[in-house]
């Protein structure tokens, strides 16, 4: 078993307990998609592409009153150590659902009845916390399409490793740590739109962990904002 934390509180990848992995986001990376983004979050490498609002197929899914949102989270077969079967696993289907529900509150689709917005997320390389990183890229890709939004969605996990609450759990810590809590917020309203937990926490640790994760989400938000500014104001695109 790897040592997850040194005596002086340094984690297995050299970070402090309150430190995020390196994050970089690039907006508008795909030609065909209406909106797109690429994120590197530690060793995670994830592409998000958004299409729509467009016609709904199959037609029976269309809603007369509002546009709908669909989301697909998918991992490439080469994204993990052992080759992953390319067919969607139950884990991927569940994550697709929680990602959709995390993004939905930020979108205003009332003005696009009978249409769909499709969000496709492809995890090219996975390294713990891929659902949060996927969500960060998807939110920016949605903003890139110009669909009306109330807020962005920013996600980050916190967890418990070697009896301490840590920010942004990596793959080793996820496998061998004590708890993992992915969280997403709408940074301006403060509302929590994604939250999951596995692992054992006391009531106090639960509260600290949630607040630690939210602190991480706010840092991620700054990276997302800068990526959007770079795309629309600094690279000369009108």
């Amino acid at each position, binding site marked *: 078993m790897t040592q997850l934390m040194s005596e002086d509180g340094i984690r297995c990848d050299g970070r402090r307990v309150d430190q995020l992995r390196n994050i970089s986001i690039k907006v508008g990376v795909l030609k065909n998609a209406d909106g797109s983004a690429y994120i590197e979050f530690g060793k995670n490498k994830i592409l998000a592409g958004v299409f729509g609002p467009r016609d709904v197929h199959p037609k029976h899914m269309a809603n*007369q*009153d509002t546009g709908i949102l669909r989301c697909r989270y998918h991992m490439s077969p080469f994204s993990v150590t052992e080759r992953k079967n390319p067919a969607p696993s*139950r*884990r991927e*289907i*569940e994550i*697709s*659902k*929680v990602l959709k*529900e995390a993004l*939905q*509150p930020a979108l205003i689709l009332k003005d696009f009845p009978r249409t769909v917005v499709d969000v496709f997320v492809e995890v090219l390389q996975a390294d713990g916390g891929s659902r949060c990183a996927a969500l960060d890229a998807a939110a920016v890709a949605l903003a890139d399409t110009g669909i009306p939004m109330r807020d962005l969605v920013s996600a980050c996990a916190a967890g418990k490793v070697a009896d301490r609450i840590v920010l942004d759990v990596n793959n080793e810590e996820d496998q061998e740590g004590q708890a993992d*809590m992915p969280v997403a*917020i*709408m940074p301006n309203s*403060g*509302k*929590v*739109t*994604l*939250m*999951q*937990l*596995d*692992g*054992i*926490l*006391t*009531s106090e640790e*639960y*509260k600290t962990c*949630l*607040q630690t994760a*939210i602190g991480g989400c706010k840092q991620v938000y700054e990276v997302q904002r800068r990526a959007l500014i770079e795309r629309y104001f600094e690279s000369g695109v009108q």
Partner: protein
Amino acid sequence: MESVIIDQLKRDKILDLLKQGRRLDGRALDEQRPLTIETGVIPKANGSARVKLGNTEVITGVKVQPDKPFPDLGDKGILICTAEILPLADPHVEPGPPTEEVIELARVVDRGIRETEMIDLHQLVLIEDKSVVGIFIDSSVIDSDGNLFDACSYASVSAVLSSTIPKYEIKDDAPVLVEGVTSKPPVKTLPVSVTMARIGDYIIVDPTKDEEACMDARITITTNSAGNICALQKGGEDGFTVDQLFKCSEMALSVGTKIRKKLEQLM
């Protein structure tokens, strides 16, 4: 179109009542529906339970059989927990591959039992890395009136508590059943899942199908016997404030205590 209008009417009615601290079926906001648990309903299973939570009804069976361990977990027995909504349980359910909702249901129920470490899987090893005992917990929703998460979770936990584990001996590197010798499952703690819905600014425990149809967001929190929070899943198309999430964890602990007393009687 019609159904949308009816949902809006129901939502208005439900919200009106919530403002007075009441619900459609007369319950308090933090009150669960009556829970009945009957065990031993399927004698051919190693353990079973039929659980009614209000009008939601679930049958769970436990099967125990020798199996190969997962390659990276050779020192642990196998635990598999599934759930499905039978087509006879709800007019809107059709036969076919599982929907996202059903997959989420099964995974949330599994997570509650796995993450609380209810069953000591280390005690289910026959030969390390080669042969272990597998515990398969399969739940079928047979009547659906909301909060399938908690109903399936209580049924699964009850079925495990009522189960007997057959004894296996190793002969020529293969497990052989020893007739007539059984033991109780190695249970360490009792997971209790509590599902809450947010409608407007109100948090209610154990939502019915009508309440789920008009809720803004949902959360399922599983606690263990020591009062820790072990698994959690937020669902629904809107979010929660941090204060609401703190309140939910407290409600999960207080409501969970009552349910745990009921489950303890099965031990």
